[in-house]
């Protein structure tokens, strides 16, 4: 794991939500996806700070869309997971799976 970026739990959730959303990942949809899949309502500040931090780490890239009247003439900021980001989340999930091997947790079939 040498050289790979360490990912916190919320960083992993955000990266996975962006991967699930594909091309339509921006603040509103990312927040909604996290809420839908985890039942956790992300705090606005925590979400945008995490997105900025992941972009600084080179795990995400962002691009501004076109302004819309629904948003008061403000543009959306779309996020995409980079190759480094994909490698980091894969590594993090593999570590979780290794830790889970052989464990029998209640409510999980393949633990």
């Amino acid at each position, binding site marked *: 794991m040498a050289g790979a970026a360490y990912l916190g739990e919320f960083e992993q959730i955000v990266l996975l939500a962006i991967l699930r959303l594909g091309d339509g990942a921006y603040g*509103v949809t990312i927040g909604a996806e996290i809420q839908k899949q985890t039942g956790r309502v992300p705090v606005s*500040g925590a979400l945008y700070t995490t997105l*900025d931090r992941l972009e600084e780490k080179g795990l995400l890239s962002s691009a501004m869309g076109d302004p819309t009247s629904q*948003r*008061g003439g*403000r*543009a959306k900021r779309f996020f995409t997971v980079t190759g480094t980001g994909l490698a980091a989340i894969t590594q993090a999930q593999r570590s979780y799976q290794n830790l889970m091997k052989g464990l029998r947790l209640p409510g999980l079939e393949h633990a």
Partner: protein
Amino acid sequence: MHRQTIGEWILGRLMTQDHAAAIVGDLEENGVSHMRFWLAIASNVIHSISRATAMAAVKGCLVQFAFTLLLSPVVTVAFYFLPLRYFLWIGAISILPVQIFTAFWITRQKQKQPLLICLMIVLIDCALGLLKINNVSINMAIWSIPLLLATIAIDRRNRQKSIA
């Protein structure tokens, strides 16, 4: 002025204008109430405070203290040679250059959020002023506004220079 404009201006001090506008746009798209809008803005401001920013604010307070020490001989001389009412005025006015030097120091740091550092220093100054440790701490709190204005002005000039 609309809440979006104010919210965007506040966030624009801490991040690029594009990013600030995108956050405010997201909040508008969600159609949040006034309270949730301002809570989200406050949450973004609080989460923007990095450890480096907090350390810079503490350093700024130490720099202020160092500047105050440099000026203390002037105030001491005033204490011996001037009547008490003039001495108090000199003590109060001598804090003004300290705050302006501090504003220059803040904006010369390679930090992304000079205004946030300034606000944190102002909060520390005000807290110390409320504790009434001595005349210097009280004057420092009173003269926080020039520090804030000077930092905004220098930061704005630096931004305009970098755009040009």
